[in-house]
């Protein structure tokens, strides 16, 4: 009987062993996409995958994790687990996750499948294949974990339609569309490294710890089920960067440019997470500022970048500005969501007095001076029976597509306006970073599908707010003020009933 192969040999056989040189077509016909970006690879065998995942191992492992997850979901539904979350307000964070992040998992699935077909290195192809299947599994288990809430709460019903159409969701959508329309190595730098390595903790930890703190068992269990995959993706991200940098010195400036671009794009995307984290979690985990300091400043700037310096890689463009903005962005973004809440597929509200005091304590330099006055004025309007909305449409940044709400790095009282002219047309940007990204590739960003301009061109269902909301897939109750909303009234009734049993 033949000796059984060890893990290392199995992995080698499953990757390098199944590679072949095409004979019926030319190499460049089989692999047409990996050279135009200017990246030079001399030896694909230098690719090291520390996880050495093979397909048979992968199936066994993932099937076991799925069994555990679905057992929890069944029990949650049977036991009316949704009544045990901290407060119905919490679920607005999960609505944003489902509408904004889950469709990105699906896009990642599609494009890692593309990478696993078109990269000539067999080790890289295998890693991309496993990640592609992970991403599809994440899409499915996120939908399954969050769908039990759809039966009882608003805003969970049309995530796919909303993702393609709603104004604030064009922020994550355009981010990923930018990545999949780039070449394969830029995509890997953007998604595997900048997103999955540099910024992933800032995205996932707040959502998953937020879920755990607020009694959301399905999302917490999903988080655990995805965690081991995420560490594999992080490792892939770091391996991508080191491999590119070690293969040829000429790759260094190309990779640096991509890091500069994709740190800033990912960081701007995370501004939505910042608002969610400080404002939508009734039980707070930590502030955005604290999370940024821990997961970015300490882990990445102090931990990772000194290690990358030996390749000639510098911390990405915009880091100094991001550090200054940690005092501001969660407030600036939430205030914007509150102001345009009539057109969002989640509810917004004025934070309670104790929540505002928490903000004062966490943001002593800025909250009382710049943001508390907004809520006081909005409260005055509410006391007279009104609800403040900015009843119009905002100016958007041409690159990140976020409303032009960010302020000058050194002045929280002044909006940061940047603009340029390209081929006789004017373009506006929220920051030096977004302007720089435009100037590197203006031909790409002149095509941006900006939701505000599309509404004005008549491409979004009609000229009135109800017509646009219907086109978005937003139903009455999904949007607007939380106090007095369908969710708030149901929650109050359910808990009143429980109290009298």
């Amino acid at each position, binding site marked *: 009987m033949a000796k059984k192969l060890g893990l290392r040999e199995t992995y080698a056989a499953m990757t390098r062993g199944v590679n072949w040189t095409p004979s019926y077509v030319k190499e460049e016909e089989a692999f047409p996409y990996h050279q135009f970006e200017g990246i030079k690879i001399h030896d694909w065998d230098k690719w090291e995958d520390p996880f050495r995942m093979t397909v048979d191992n992968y199936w066994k492992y993932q099937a076991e994790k799925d069994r555990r997850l679905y057992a929890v979901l069944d029990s949650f539904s049977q036991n009316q687990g949704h009544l045990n979350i901290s407060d119905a307000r919490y679920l607005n964070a999960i609505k944003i996750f489902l509408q904004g992040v889950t469709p990105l998992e699906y896009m990642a699935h599609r494009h890692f499948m593309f990478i696993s077909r078109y990269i000539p290195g067999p080790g890289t192809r295998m890693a991309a294949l496993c990640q592609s299947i992970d991403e599809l599994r994440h899409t499915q288990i996120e939908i399954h974990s969050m769908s039990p809430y759809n039966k009882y709460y608003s805003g969970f019903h049309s995530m796919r339609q909303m993702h393609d159409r709603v104004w604030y969701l064009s922020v994550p959508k355009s981010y990923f569309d930018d990545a999949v329309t780039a*070449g394969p190595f830029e995509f890997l730098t953007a998604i595997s490294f900048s997103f999955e390595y540099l910024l992933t903790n800032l995205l996932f930890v707040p959502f998953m710890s937020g879920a755990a703190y607020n009694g959301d068992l399905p999302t917490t269990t999903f988080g655990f089920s995805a965690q081991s995959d995420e560490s594999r993706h992080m490792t892939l991200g770091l391996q991508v960067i080191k491999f590119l940098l070690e293969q040829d010195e000429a790759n260094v400036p190309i990779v640096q440019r991509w890091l500069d671009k994709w740190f800033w794009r990912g960081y701007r995307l995370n501004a939505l997470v910042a608002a969610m984290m400080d404002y939508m979690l009734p039980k707070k985990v930590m502030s955005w500022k604290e999370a940024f300091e821990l997961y970015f400043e300490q882990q990445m700037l102090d931990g990772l970048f000194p290690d990358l310096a030996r390749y000639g890689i510098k911390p990405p463009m915009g880091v100094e500005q991001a550090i200054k903005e940690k005092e501001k962005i969660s407030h600036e973004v939430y205030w914007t969501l509150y102001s345009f809440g009539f057109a969002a597929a989640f509810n917004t509200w004025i934070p309670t007095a104790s929540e505002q005091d928490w903000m004062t304590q966490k943001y002593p330099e800025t909250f009382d001076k710049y943001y508390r006055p907004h809520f006081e004025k909005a409260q005055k309007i509410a006391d007279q029976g009104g609800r403040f909305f*900015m009843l119009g449409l905002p100016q958007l940044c041409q690159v990140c597509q976020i409303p032009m709400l960010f302020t000058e790095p050194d002045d929280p009282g002044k909006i940061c306006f940047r603009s340029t002219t390209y081929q006789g047309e004017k373009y506006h940007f929220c920051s030096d970073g977004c302007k720089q990204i435009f100037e590197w590739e203006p031909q790409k960003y002149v095509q941006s599908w900006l939701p505000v301009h599309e509404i004005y061109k008549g491409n979004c269902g009609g000229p009135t707010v109800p017509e646009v909301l219907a086109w978005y897939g937003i139903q009455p109750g999904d949007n607007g003020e939380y106090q007095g909303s369908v969710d708030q009234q149901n929650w109050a009734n359910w808990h009143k009933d429980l109290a009298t049993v």
Partner: protein
Amino acid sequence: MAVVSLKPGYEFPARDRAEVFGDDMLVYVHWAGNLFFCAAAAYRAPKAMKWGDFKANMVDTLFSGDPDYAKLTPENTRWTLNDQPLNPSADVSLTELGITHKDLLKFEKVG
């Protein structure tokens, strides 16, 4: 700088170029010094629209959502167009005021 593309000729018309809007144009209006309005407002307005109509039907409607807007008068409000001083009068059209597609107007309370 050019996009690094698979094939030459990566050129597309700007999606929101002036001609797409015909006799109208996009105009942005920002209340400087008052971030109760989180961002500048975007409008689609006819180029021939008189300033007085633009102000009354578009600007006032939106910005009066803040009770403090009532404190603004023509005397204590300073306007700029792309950060250059602007002295608009009601019966002049937007085009005659020099406003073009995607320009940024700001107003501010002075004194």
